[in-house]
């Protein structure tokens, strides 16, 4: 029977559910011109959530509701950064939404509901909770993508995302049912024990393959990447920035829960599968990014390649690999938030700033914006003092230690190819002449400017002092 202790373990999630429902009610009774209060309240709600996650963290792993929910160090790190990156999203999204008459309460409540899904997913202790957390996250995301109902591109992206997402959920569920059939348990901890002594090893591996398809889709790893460019381009940029940041942490959490805890004994099977996904993602992501002229599509293909790097860490299948992949997921969430943040800061009513050519001569128009974008691009490309460099270095190291030297070499070659298209953006900003008659400047919203600058500077600071963060990532996987 569930008791009070179970509820205390679940406190951050329960608090967010209650807060989201209250915000929903508040929005219904609020005048449209008071809506910026909702914006600040939502940010406060998420920050209190961060506090509850950290302050209530038990000293060792605890489970609640018959092992359905696990609260351990991994979940803590993922939740803290998922909440923080969503706070960034709220800061960046406000002026964009206001300019386009999309500044509605549902954006905030649906995003918070999606974050609740992320928190449940990364804390899942059972296949059921993994699936339900994922559905909570994706259902909210579908609605967010379709939020701009008058745009045909948005509706198309939402339908594509919905149909492919439903297919991937079906695959995942099918795989889970086979794993359940082979082991007779849904609990990930029991699964770990039962997987070793199953009488139907082939069924188990079959289920594993379907589950990897589901994970690959949620990560956006090739060959399950088809939805990423269209969804990134089609959704309002304020939604793209959310889909591109916090859910990537959730996808890592899901992969870790399913493969790293539940099916860890099958690692000799899934290591090679993930290595194949990684090579395909690195190749397709980096090569197709070169030919893009749309900045959002370019970042979408760069996401695919970044998921390839994240998989390099997972391929290690040991604490070192998980720590480096977690570190990579965090670095990617912060970089992606910053990159889309600059796009949001430069966009204004009637101007999306989503073509690379829109950035021509940005350095003469707005030197600070150009400088911020340059730092983000350097970090994504993996130029040494930046955050992205150490994240890449650590996943390469993890892959080499697991005996996948060839994979690390592929990754390094892909990184060099990647530098080309990131530097192209920098070149356009600094060396091309601005197009006459166009105007481009940063949004005047002070909070956006300050938070964006802090976010980009954090990429530099964490690049130089990456030790403590990586130490935290390492600690949670040991013991």
């Amino acid at each position, binding site marked *: *029977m*569930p008791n009070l202790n179970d509820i205390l373990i*679940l406190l951050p999630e329960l608090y967010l*559910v209650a807060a989201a*429902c209250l915000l*929903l009610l508040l929005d219904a009774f609020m005048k449209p011109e008071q809506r910026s209060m909702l914006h600040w309240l939502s940010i406060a709600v998420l920050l209190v959530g961060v506090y509850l996650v950290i302050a209530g963290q038990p000293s060792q792993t605890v489970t*609640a*509701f*018959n092992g*359905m*929910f696990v609260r351990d160090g991994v979940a803590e790190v993922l939740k803290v950064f998922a909440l923080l990156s969503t706070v960034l999203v709220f800061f960046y999204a406000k002026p964009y939404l206001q300019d386009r008459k999309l500044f*509605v309460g*549902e954006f905030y*409540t*649906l995003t918070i*509901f999606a974050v*609740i899904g992320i928190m*449940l997913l990364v804390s899942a202790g*059972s296949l*059921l*909770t993994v699936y*339900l*957390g994922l*559905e*909570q996250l994706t*259902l*909210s995301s*579908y*609605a967010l993508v*379709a*939020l701009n*109902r008058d745009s045909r591109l948005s509706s198309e992206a939402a339908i594509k995302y919905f149909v492919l997402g439903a297919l991937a959920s079906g695959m995942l569920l099918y795989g889970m049912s086979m794993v359940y059939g082979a082991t007779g348990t849904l609990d990930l901890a029991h699964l770990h024990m039962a997987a070793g002594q199953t009488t139907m090893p082939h069924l188990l591996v079959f289920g594993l393959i379907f589950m990897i398809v589901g994970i690959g889709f949620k990560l956006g790893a090739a060959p399950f990447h088809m939805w990423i460019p269209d969804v990134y381009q089609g959704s309002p940029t304020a939604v793209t920035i959310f889909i591109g940041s916090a859910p990537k942490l959730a996808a890592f959490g899901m992969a870790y829960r399913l493969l790293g805890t539940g099916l860890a004994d099958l690692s000799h099977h899934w290591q090679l599968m993930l290595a194949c996904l990684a090579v395909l993602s690195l190749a397709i992501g980096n090569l197709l990014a070169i030919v893009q002229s749309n900045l959002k599509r370019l970042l979408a293909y760069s996401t695919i390649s970044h998921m390839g790097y994240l998989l390099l860490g997972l391929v290690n299948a040991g604490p070192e690999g998980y720590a480096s992949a977690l570190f990579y997921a965090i670095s990617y969430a912060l970089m992606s938030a910053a990159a889309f943040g600059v796009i949001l800061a430069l966009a204004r009513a009637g101007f999306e700033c989503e073509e690379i050519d829109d950035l021509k001569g940005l350095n003469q128009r707005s030197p600070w914006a150009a400088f911020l974008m340059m730092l983000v691009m350097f970090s994504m490309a993996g130029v040494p003092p930046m955050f992205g460099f150490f994240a890449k270095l650590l996943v390469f190291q993890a892959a080499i230690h697991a005996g996948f030297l060839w994979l690390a070499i592929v990754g390094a070659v892909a990184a060099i190819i990647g530098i080309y298209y990131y530097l192209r953006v920098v070149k356009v900003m600094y060396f091309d002449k601005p197009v006459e008659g166009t105007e481009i400047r940063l949004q005047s919203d002070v909070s956006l400017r300050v938070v964006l600058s802090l976010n980009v500077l954090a990429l530099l600071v964490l690049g130089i002092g990456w030790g403590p963060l990586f130490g935290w990532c390492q600690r949670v996987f040991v013991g």
Partner: protein
Amino acid sequence: MIDPSMFQLVCFYAFAAVTVVAALGVITLRNTVHAVLSLVLTFFSTACIWLLAEAEFLAIALIVVYVGAVMVLFLFVVMMLDINEERLREGFIKFLPVGIIVALVMLGEMVALIGVRAMHEQVMGANPATVAGVSNTEWLGHALYTQFLLPFEIAALILTVGVVAAVALTIRHRAGTRHQQASQQVLVNPRDRVRVVKMAATVPAAPQPAPGKETTP
């Protein structure tokens, strides 16, 4: 006398075969109404298989929710979508043969189920619900509210998100939308609405030409 477990096996394969054939029909039949009826048969046969496996609650829920409500709604939608009035009116006779076949197969399945029940009370291995001496539904209820409380509540949360999303994506605050205003409705005076006009009786119109000789312009 037939062996009860043998009869059960035969029934299982018969139900399974009907399910597969009907499911194939759903995706291959050209006529959408036939496809929907075929889907009804698929659900019904699946429910029969579940009854064999002693999952009574699931089976009844499938019949009541899917066959009873969702599929009837589907039928309405499918018939509404094809706005061919003649076909709509002819629908009943036209689809009667297929409907009768579906009903007959369902009847046969039900009789077989009752036969299995009559022959053998305990058809499956140890069922935890039967061992505990409670019904399947009661057992499920206990499991949902104790062992599976968290997933059950998350499912409720997902439904909430579904409602929020549906409202967010469909509600429109357009200028010129007509809303009811009770205060104005109450203040209405009948004299403002109805005007009685006195007119002279009109001359009857010329007789229509006989049908068939009509020419279309």
